[in-house]
């Protein structure tokens, strides 16, 4: 409990002792945002752990990462920002190529295919290419540790804002329409394939950014950080938070990354209680913490208080129609 009290009442002391955790929370927030982009457009994809790996390995290799036998890429020492841009571009390219055949799939088939992509990338490429250090991992002598935390949170805030603005544009409306009913969306003249691809590629880019930023919190990156489990974790954050709003997945990531730390005092049964709480949240709020109330454009419960305040300020107007 001390953890929570400190976090709430002495945030600066808390931050001083938990900088790496704060950094991790930011990275997880970015990852949740990356999977939200595809979920919001109605696609259950689990490839983001793979894109995260692409971002992480690119950013470490290009800034002078070393394997146990020497520099990963001899003579290459790009600035971190450039290396990350390369990683993001590479992830976007891979996403585009993979997306062409895969995005025709739906539901669980899409999920399993994208999961297959992630594992094939890990077992097929990362563990077999000399440049990645294979199973020994890739040393990152240029890790920034705590100074890397500000960029992470800055990226999260900026991207969350952009994603929120995006939901109000033509693209955002198209995604929501595809999520509601793909056939109807197509009938309205929405280019379904194109908008799905845009969401998938954007999600891959955000995941690659998160991977690159996260990699620089550590002196070693290892293929075990980009597994099936990591992909599922992102999905859990997003579903727990709710996908109707950008804020949902981010809040889900923050809460569920902090939860094991809050539960540390339960010692051996930490993971058990973690699981119980996860089930409880899903049973109470199967659509996530932040949801749209049915029939209106307003979010329910958690945001209802805010909606009430807003309504009392504004004159009585007809409720906006649901999108």
């Amino acid at each position: 409990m001390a953890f929570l009290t400190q976090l709430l009442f002495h945030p600066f002391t808390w931050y001083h002792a938990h900088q790496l955790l704060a950094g991790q929370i930011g990275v997880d927030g970015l990852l949740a945002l990356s999977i939200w982009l595809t979920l919001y457009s109605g696609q259950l994809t689990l490839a983001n752990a793979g894109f995260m790996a692409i971002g992480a390995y690119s950013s470490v290799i290009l800034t002078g990462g070393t394997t146990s036998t020497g520099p990963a890429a001899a003579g290459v020492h790009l600035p971190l920002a450039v290396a990350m841009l390369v990683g993001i571009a590479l992830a976007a390219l891979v996403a585009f190529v993979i997306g062409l055949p895969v995005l025709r799939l739906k539901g669980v088939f899409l999920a399993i295919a994208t999961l297959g992509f992630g594992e094939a990338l890990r077992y097929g490429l990362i563990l077999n290419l000399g440049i990645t250090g294979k199973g020994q991992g890739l040393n990152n002598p240029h890790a920034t540790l705590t100074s890397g935390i500000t960029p992470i949170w800055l990226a999260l805030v900026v991207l969350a804002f952009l994603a929120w603005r995006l939901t109000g544009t033509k693209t955002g409306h198209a995604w929501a329409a595809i999520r509601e009913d793909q056939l109807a969306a197509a009938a309205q003249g929405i280019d379904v394939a194109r908008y799905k691809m845009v969401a998938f590629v954007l999600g891959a880019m955000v995941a690659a950014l998160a991977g690159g930023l996260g990699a620089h919190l550590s002196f070693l990156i290892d293929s075990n950080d980009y597994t099936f489990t990591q992909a599922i974790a992102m999905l859990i954050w997003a579903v727990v938070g709710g996908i109707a709003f950008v804020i949902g997945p981010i809040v889900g990531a923050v809460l569920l990354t902090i939860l094991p730390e809050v539960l540390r005092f339960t010692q051996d049964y930490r993971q058990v209680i973690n699981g119980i709480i996860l089930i409880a949240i899903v049973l109470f709020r199967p659509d996530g913490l932040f949801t749209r109330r049915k029939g209106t454009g307003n979010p329910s419960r958690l945001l209802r208080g805010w909606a009430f305040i807003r309504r009392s300020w504004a004159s009585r107007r007809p409720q906006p129609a649901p999108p």
Partner: protein
Amino acid sequence: MRNTIQQLLNGIFIGSIYALFGLGYTLVFGLLDVLNLAHSEVFMLGAVVTYSLVALHHVPFLLAVPLGIVAGGLLGLVIEFVALRPLRRRGAPPIAALISTIGLALILVALIEQAKRGSALAWLWRDGANDVQFPAGKVPDRIWHLAGLTLPVDKLAIVVITVALMAVLAYVMAKTPAGRAVRAVAENPRAAQLLGVNVDRVITITLVVSSALAALAGILFALALNDISPYIGRDQVELRGLAVIVLGGMGSIPGTFIGGFTLGLLESVTILTLGTDVRAVGFVALFVMLILRPSGLLGRQTSERV
């Protein structure tokens, strides 16, 4: 040549375990469109319960096996009543059920992982995160050596059991009233309800059967591969189970069996030809299969399943 035959046999042995495990996945998915990710932990607990009975409580193996299967079936009830039914009643999306079964899986692994000597669950498991195997002499572990081939009796039994179970299940699904009820619910739950089918009961029974199969698969895995630990479900079969049901065709029982044997043999052939890295090949195959024929080898062509 001898090595080749031996490796193909190994592929068939492990393939039948994959098939048995995938069967439960596919039954539940076919019915509810929900991926039950707690399935792999039922697999693990089936093995753990049977091990506990044999090694800690000195129950004869042939009695411990049915008890382990019953324990698996009971766990199926837990999955239905804790993770699935409450969400179904609320009309929650399948993805919520996916997450609740993940939560259940986390709890089950953590409970076994923390069970040590002196802890509350020491009667069930006392080796924490360690791997154990059945004590020698208490389980069937004869090995036949035939024409230079190693043929463990337990592995041969697995293939026989798997094929027999497949035949029984395929018959039940195709020819009996119970099977028709399951197919009716899978096709359209609301219509089935109107026709007088007790949908909840069909789902509950399917979960019990599916979980009992997972427990059996776990027991056979533990016996044949000498490996029991809190992680055998999550690490060894969870993803492979997904691959199997996709390769075979979601919801198809014969398809799942073909999928299981295909994956087992594919892994063997990879080891024979490349020597290493079976996992990547399995996933590449999965990926290619989904792109070329999303409905799997024997699946029906469905327009949309979310």
